[in-house]
């Protein structure tokens, strides 16, 4: 084994996997926090567990192991109950109730920590806030490096790593086994309760899970940055898909990419760009997760800004084209088959809109340019008949069924005519014959 590899195994291997396990377990729980609109509960609990951890630490006098998890889970539950109490009694929104509860509990934790320091117990404040992933080294002798899977070698893996693996196993088990319950309780708490599993119980179980992954991840990412790991992957996945199963898998991928990418950038990338030594890796993970979210927010094919913009543009283009054809059709009805460009611009609300629509309509063969202006082709006339039919059927419906006055129905119909679904065609013919409320004929044919 060469030196570079040996250094990697000693210094980077465990932190890398620890980062991955932390990111993964947070992301799995985070999906349900985001769905339930309780993302800030992650922030609140991750702060509120501090007194539980320190108290357990002071009582049991040990840094690792079950007391810390029990203390944290208890503090998490207490925090959730207190938030409910403050919200109910104070009649304030749950955000404000969280803003009350978690600072008080965190402050209690800080004061307790000072007490611990007074008893010469080492519990570092900065570690709690932003983690010390870099210290999770695997202290192997050269002998052990040759047999890294021997029990001696594995015995030297930091205890925090095993805690992370344990919490990952727990979270995966809960998500896989309780998927149905979690899903129903997240989307429809009332339904969950009426189906016989208490949504209240599930929300408390979720709080415990958040507390557990927070504590397990403390060493890796710290109490504030754990929020990024809880929320970012799930939010990124939600920007891409509408299906919960897909969202879960995507968030898993995103969290692994985040851990790996951030570790690479923080540990190896920073020296490469001339920074002396590595930068804080927990911070890099939060940044990386934020960057992935930003990319998804901009470029996601379903909900990204660019895709939405493109869809809006396509819709605007279609609407302007239909407006052009509709305008020409009405003009023809009134005996003016050719409309001059400036008249069109006036009728369609703008020269740019009109010229663009004419260019596209001519290219599509539904309108033709003539010496004095623009006219409909045969195909365009048929198309226009469909649009005007939909428009006038909607006007009829709005007057006869929805009880609007005849002089109030043009504008809504102008909007509805573009949403040409079956609904438009299912409107009953007017009781007054084939005329709309303004006395115009309703063209035949399908919209």
């Amino acid at each position, binding site marked *: 084994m060469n030196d570079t590899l040996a250094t990697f195994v000693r210094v980077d291997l465990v932190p890398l996997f620890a980062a991955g396990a932390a990111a993964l377990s947070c992301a799995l729980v985070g999906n349900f926090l985001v769905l339930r*609109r309780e*993302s*800030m509960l*992650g*922030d609140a609990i991750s702060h509120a567990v501090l007194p539980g951890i320190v108290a357990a630490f002071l009582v049991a006098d040990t840094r690792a192991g079950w007391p810390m998890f029990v203390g944290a889970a208890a503090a998490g539950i207490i925090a959730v109950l207190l938030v409910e*109490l*403050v919200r109910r*009694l*104070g*009649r*304030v*929104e749950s*955000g*404000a*109730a969280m*803003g*009350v509860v978690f*600072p*008080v509990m*965190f*402050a*209690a934790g*800080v*004061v307790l920590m*000072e*007490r611990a320091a*007074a008893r010469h117990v080492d519990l570092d*404040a900065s570690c709690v*806030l*932003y983690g010390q992933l870099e210290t999770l080294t695997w202290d192997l002798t050269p002998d052990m490096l040759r047999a890294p899977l021997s029990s001696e070698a594995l015995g030297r893996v930091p205890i925090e790593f095993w805690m992370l693996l344990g919490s990952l196993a727990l979270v995966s088990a809960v998500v896989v086994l309780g998927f149905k319950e979690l899903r129903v309780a997240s989307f429809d708490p009332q339904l969950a309760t009426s189906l016989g599993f208490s949504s209240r119980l599930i929300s408390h179980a979720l709080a415990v899970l958040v507390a557990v992954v927070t504590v397990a991840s403390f060493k890796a990412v710290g109490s*504030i*940055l*754990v*929020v*990024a790991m809880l*929320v*970012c992957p*799930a*939010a990124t996945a939600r*920007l891409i898909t509408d299906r919960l199963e897909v969202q879960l898998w995507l968030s898993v991928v995103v969290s692994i990419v985040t851990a790996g990418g951030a570790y690479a950038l*923080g540990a190896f990338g*920073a020296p490469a760009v001339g*920074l*002396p*030594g590595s*930068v*804080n890796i*927990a*911070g*890099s993970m*939060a*940044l990386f*997760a*934020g960057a992935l*979210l930003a990319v998804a*927010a901009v470029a996601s094919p379903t*909900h*990204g*800004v660019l895709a*939405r913009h493109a869809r809006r543009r396509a819709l605007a283009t279609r609407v302007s084209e239909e407006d052009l054809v509709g305008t020409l059709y009405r003009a023809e009805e009134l005996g003016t088959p050719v409309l001059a460009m400036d008249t069109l611009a006036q009728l369609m609300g703008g020269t740019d809109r009109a010229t663009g629509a004419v260019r596209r309509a001519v290219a599509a063969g539904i309108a033709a340019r003539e010496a004095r202006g623009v006219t409909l082709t045969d195909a365009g006339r048929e198309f226009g008949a469909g649009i005007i039919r939909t428009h006038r059927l909607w006007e009829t419906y709005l007057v006869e069924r929805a009880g609007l006055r005849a002089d109030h129905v043009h504008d809504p119909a102008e909007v509805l005519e573009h949403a040409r679904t079956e609904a438009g065609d299912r409107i009953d013919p007017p009781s007054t014959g084939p005329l709309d409320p303004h006395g115009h004929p309703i063209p035949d044919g399908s919209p």
Partner: protein
Amino acid sequence: MTLPAPNPAWADLLDALTLQRGYTATVVTLGTTALGIAGGIVGTFALLRKRALMADTLAHASLPGVAGAFMIATALGASGKSLAVLLPGAAISGVLGVLLVHMLTRTGRIRPDAAMAVVLSVTFGLGVVLLSVIQKSSSGQQAGLSTFIYGQTAAMSRTDVLVIACAAAVAAVVIGLILKELTYASFDRSHARVSGIPVGGIDLTLMALVVLVTVVALQAVGLVLAVAILVIPPVTARLWTNRLRRMLALSALFGALGGYTGAVASAVFERLPAGSVIVLASGGLLAISLIAAPNRGVVGAAWRSARLRHGMARDHALRALYELADRSGGPWVSIHELAEHRGASPRSTRWITRVLSLTGYVQRNAGRARLTPRGEADAKRITRNHRLWEQYLLTFADVAPTHVDVSADHAEHALGTDIVAHLERALADRGALPDRLPDHTELEGAGA
């Protein structure tokens, strides 16, 4: 657990309370008190506009600004640790964070809670990375920066206190000037808009004040706890009153008390971090209010619901006695029979008849009970109300006959004399008055 500084003399405590424990302690106490007032005033409206947690996001998002301002100032050769550099940096990046939340929310796919959590943690991550870069590149110089995370009240200087006092004064004056508009915009935005109030401008002003108080609080309590300065006092005040002006005054008072108590405690007990103690003091006031506030407190609520439960049990027992006596012909009813009729336990029935006999409504004798004239008058009134309401539900509300008894059980206690008269008239008009309606003649001293 013993306190870190063993048993400070009472004189110490008194000195600290009366601001006679040296210059630094006095300065710190004044500063945190002013901060509490500012937080209480601005926080009231942040709470009403449901922006409470925005302060948390803002505080966390200020860290990269602090680090960035330090780096820029150091690169330009200036002292990076001066507050004149750091606080504007904090404010700018805090505001950018809030804007980012709005942008994320506008994608329509990320809800406000997730947007706040994302911005809060990612910007804090950026701050942590920048701090670690500063730490690596300039040894030891960043020491002053990490105090922004936990706050460093004890190191407050006279200038800091002046800054805080100015911020508090600005907040109080601005809120005072736009109080009416703020109230409108907080309770009824659409009405405010049609009344010609620039709602957007008012929102921006409030946001600016939140930024101001948060940035000032960073120095004192740190960015993790800054949100507490803005949220705890108004929530505490909300427990005591429903009137906005009173809430505003109480919130400022609670903020001041929290700041004052916290600073005094940390001056007396060394080693207690002042920022945390201030938050704990405010939390203590909140805990007291949660228990003792007359309308919203746990004790008050429990008392009111116990009174209501007792009143209902009393009414039910009286009506049951009346109905049973009416059915059997004789006035004496056995407690056992009474319990069975009401579907209650013999024990609670014995208890309620004892209470009723003590107040002179019931006479008891050897496991039996009868109504006194006074009790009978009241029982008639209750039974009459019950049957009227039952009949009303049957006649006017289309409730099935099997369901009216329970519904009537709930409503009968809330029927005032006006409503009873109205019921009677309405039922008489329909010719639907119940057959067996007890006469009710108001006796001297019969219950209300």
